[in-house]
Structures are given as structure tokens and as C-alpha cells.
């Protein structure tokens, strides 16, 4: 590949990385930014490849595109789904609503305890 073509490729990928980074902070919800982050990691790996750093490409692929989004997704799954009190099953499954559709603020951990029916709140915090 000629130097000019390589530099053009580098500029294109750099612009794509900038676009993907903007996407990460611009998309709403909690799960979709993580998916955007994974896509951004993938593009960053491509950028490292076109600036001729294949070692860093491999590291970025496994860490930026896979491991970090995975940890974030697991954390989101942990905090959005507090287990309801045993024996006090809510009438409807509380975690059926897609979390991304919730209005901002409604899904904050601790803000609403969606799994807890009003009558079962007596033992919360004293156990």
C-alpha cells in the first residue's frame, strides 16, 4: 500500500473513531451505550492496526471490545434487578419491562426497588 493511501485510510478510521466516541455519549439508555462502547473499541482496534501497531490492536480487541463492555453489562444486570423478597412475589414480573425504555431516573439503582411490592417493605434495611 502506498503511503498516500495508508494516510487516507488512517484519516478515515480516525474520523470513524471520533464518530463512534460521540455515539457512546450520545445514545440514550444504559445498555445501548455499552454496545456503542464495544463498537468504539472495535474501531479503535482498527485504528491501531492502520497506524501499524498490531500488538496494541490485539490488546484493544480483547479488552476494549470484549472485556470492558462485558463487565459493564454484568454490572448493569446486577444493579437493575434487585431480587424481590421471597414469598412476596409481585403480581407481574418486575423485570419484564426493557430497561432501556424506562424514563431517565426511573431506573436508578435504589430509586424505585421495582421488585418490591408496597406491603413488603417492612423488613428492608433491618435484616
Amino acid at each position: 500500500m502506498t503511503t498516500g493511501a495508508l494516510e487516507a485510510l488512517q484519516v478515515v478510521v480516525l474520523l470513524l473513531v471520533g464518530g463512534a466516541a460521540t455515539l457512546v455519549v450520545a445514545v440514550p439508555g444504559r445498555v445501548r451505550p455499552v454496545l456503542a462502547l464495544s463498537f468504539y473499541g472495535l474501531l479503535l482496534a482498527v485504528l491501531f492496526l492502520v497506524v501499524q501497531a498490531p500488538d496494541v490492536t490485539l490488546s484493544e480487541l480483547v479488552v476494549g471490545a470484549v472485556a470492558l463492555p462485558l463487565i459493564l453489562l454484568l454490572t448493569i444486570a446486577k444493579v437493575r434487578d434487585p431480587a424481590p423478597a421471597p414469598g412476596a412475589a409481585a403480581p407481574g414480573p418486575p423485570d419484564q419491562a426493557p430497561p432501556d425504555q424506562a424514563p431517565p431516573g426511573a431506573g436508578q439503582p435504589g430509586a424505585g426497588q421495582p421488585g418490591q411490592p408496597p406491603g413488603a417493605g417492612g423488613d428492608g434495611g433491618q435484616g
Partner: protein
Amino acid sequence: MTPGQRRWLFLVGVAGLVAFLGWGIAGLPAFGSYPGPYGPAITARVVQQTNATGVVSAINFEYRGFDTVGEEFILVAAVAGMSVVLRRLRGERADAARDDPSDLDPSATDPSGGRRRVPVTSGAVRMAALALTGPTVLAGWWLATHAQTSPSGGFQGGVLLATAFFLVYLSGEFIAFRRLSPVDVVDAAEAIGAGGFAAVGVAALPLGLPYLDNYLPLGSPGSPGAVTSSGTIAVISLLVGVAVAAAFIQLIGEFLEQTLLIQRRPPARGH
């Protein structure tokens, strides 16, 4: 402070940031130029000195091996700290998650009595994960053992090896993953990998050489790039691969356990 004042403060700050950033960027060397003396010096000598054609690995595990030992132990310390933070606390209980039957049949009742429910993994995901497990192990092993010949290394290979274990989780259950990677074995592998790296370095001292000096045979000098031809570089890369694989299995396993098994409330006593 009124919003108007705050906006002015912000604008002044941004103007300053843009000015200094622009000044700094204007003074940078041209894109791709490298003014330092070390890069050309090392690239001119590295193959001749180490017989390794994976130049980045030779630098990581030989010329600046001492830094890499430190990075290795940073990873180990970080994973140990994470294990402490994510341990099961008083007031939490470990409980097996159940597959969510309403995923397959909306009319099914929930037999778990309010336990955490996990959506059933689709057959396509299970099949893909199963099909990818073998190639992932192969790729991880290849990367970890070929740092000396090609762009790769123990870190990248180790993370890929760990990924293979999570593919097992995706194609089966958490229990299958745990059975395949018992905590004791993972801990031991992490200790052997990280401690082995340090020990390879210390072993140079009785030979009268500096710490982490390359004391193993380098193979025939005329034919660089063979797997066995770089002395300690290959050994260290493999040890790093073992340590990193164990660290990532530990790390993501802890997160999986928190998400799938550990629940916030203790069992209610009154019911």
C-alpha cells in the same frame, strides 16, 4: 452564583483550554515522526541481540522486562482487590439462578418463588459459543506461545484463553464454567504465572547476570524467528499468558457470580 456568571466562567475556561490545547498541538512533531533515539537504536539491534522477530515482545519482556513485571503485579493486585470488594457480604446469600420459563412460554408460572431469573440462552447463541470455544483456545495458545516470532504476546493470548471459558458459560451454565475453572486452580495458576515471571528474572542472579537478563540459549544466530530461539522471552510470554488468563477468569467469574448467584436479601425468616 447565577447561571449567567457560571456561563461566563465556563466560556473563559473553555477559551483557555482551547488556546493551550491548540498551542500544544501546533508544537507537536509531525504525524508519524519519532524524534527519540531509542526506537531506531533498538530496531537496529533487536533481532541480532535476542534472535526474536517479534520486536515488541522482545522490548516488553527483555529490554524493559522490569517494567513488565511491575505491570503484571499491578494486574494481580487489581484482581485481588476486586475479589475482596465483590466477596459475598453479610446479608447476601448465594442462590442458584433459574432459567426463566416465561421466556419460552409466556403462560408458565415462575417456580423460583421470586428468585433471580435468568433468560434462557437461545440455541443459536449456545451453538455459536460451542463452535467458537475450540478455535478460541487455539488462537489464545498460539498468541501466548508465539510472542517471540510475531505480533502477539502473553497478555493478548491470556485474555483470549479466558474468553474460551466464558464461551463455555455461554454454551452451558454457570455451574459448567465453575466446574471447569475451580477457584483454587485459577488462584494457583495466577500465582504460578506471576511468580514464575519474577522467578525467571531472579534465576539470572545466581548466574552472575542482572535481573531478567536473557540467560537461555537463543538458538542459532543465523535463523531468527524460530519459536525456540529467543531464550527467556518465550518463557516469560507463556507465564504472562497463564497469569493473565487466570486473572481474567477470576475477574469476570466474580462479576458473573455477583450477577447470577448472589442476592441482596437474606431469606425471610417469618414466612
